């Protein structure tokens, strides 16, 4: 058998670390809706970033923004936001963005 596959794990066992590609699964492809922020309601409390399961909220200085490569669209940020600043919008509305 000729192995053409380029090994992902450097080790015998499935070991990986934070610098390896293996930990960077594009979980964003699982998303059916995304959080859209109304900046006028946001008071920059940071709760969305704390609760975000894949920890993909980017700190923008006066608000947070989901990194859509990793955001699974779970909606926890919208649920936890005390100001109801997030609205979960179906991905279908963003198909033109590619």
């Amino acid at each position, binding site marked *: 058998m000729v192995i053409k596959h380029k090994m992902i794990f450097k080790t015998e066992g*499935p070991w990986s670390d934070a610098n390896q590609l*293996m930990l960077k699964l594009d979980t964003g492809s699982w998303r059916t809706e995304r959080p859209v922020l109304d900046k006028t309601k946001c008071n920059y409390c940071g709760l969305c970033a704390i609760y975000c399961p894949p920890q993909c909220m980017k700190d923008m200085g006066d608000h947070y923004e989901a990194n859509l490569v990793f955001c699974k669209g779970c909606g926890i940020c919208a649920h936890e936001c005390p100001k109801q600043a997030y609205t979960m919008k179906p991905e279908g509305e963003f198909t033109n963005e590619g």
Partner: protein
Amino acid sequence: MKAKKGKVSVITGNVVAAHAARVCRPEVVACYPITPQSEVAETLSGFVADGSLDAEIVEVEGENSAMNVVLAASLAGARVFTATSSYGLVYMYDAMLQASGYRAPVVMVNVNRETPGIQAVSSGQQDMISTRDSGWAQIIVENNQEIIDQIIMSYRLAEDFDIQLPVMVNYDGYYLSYLAEAVEMPDQADVDAFLAPLKNQPQRPRIIPGAATGCGTHGIEMGYVEARYKHWSALERAKQKVDDIDKEFGDYFGRSYGGQIEEYRMNDADIAIVASGSAAGTAKTVVDAKRADGIKVGLVKQRLFRPFPEERLIQALKGKKAVGVIDRSVCFGWKYGPMCTELKAIAPSIGAMPILSYIDGLANLDITIPHIGRVVDEVNAAAKGKAYQDVTWIPME
């Protein structure tokens, strides 16, 4: 260089297993007591209490925790040991799969006992059979001397950098666990010397406090396939490694067991019996007696159950006229016993011959000399073209 002659003591299989673990110097031990293994756990606790073993003993609330504890300790780089049986083995099944999937070199003793379903507190290999697809290396031994020797060899196998697999050493509950017989205890310095090569190999990956590293993560799609392929390949490599370690052990300690299989009077044999565990010892006596009667029979003692010793079995059985396989367990959903079923899979490579399956020795029933004698006679008749039964449950007839 040769090992010193060790001190000979008359001790039970369980105490032998505990001594075997002790001389291999495990750093973490977690055993939950279960009949017929309890004496292993008790004896190891005694060793730690009296200072003869410098190990962390974790008192767990069950076997599932025991396996998770030794798995975690192994991933942190420790040498580990655990022991169980029957219900305990199946209770740790998910953690066993983690251990092999994470390629943790755990060494575990499994004292063979019947499994849940019928509350059988009695001997049988069904527990080991029930975990055969767990990805562990599984080795079966025949007597108390082989228990200690094989446990020492198992650390060489498990922790070998090319292998990195958990190893299960099986011996018959009741028959060996409580049987006291003379055992030569290898000297500590000699065991240290035999295990020393493990120190000269590359450092296997381990969890380091503070470092963002982990094992078992992200086995999705090709990550999963790759991990499985490596695991499968390591088991394939383990076969030759078992032979090599056995030879090295034999050269050093003067005792050798044939590696994957032991062939007894097989060279000029026309027919063969395949057996494992303590029954193989009885079978040797029967082979000698039948040879005296003029039947050219030999015994293949299967030591390595997983990985399946395909090549060695083909070599040993090719061209024989008939084979009888004695199983101390049942293969649910297949007509033949588990080992017979597997032997049938290599039938094209050993040539067309009658392969007779025998189920015997379940639930502490003895696999007696007359039982094995009958097997030899029937296999001999089948070799001469007589009709035979595919499967025989000896105690049911």
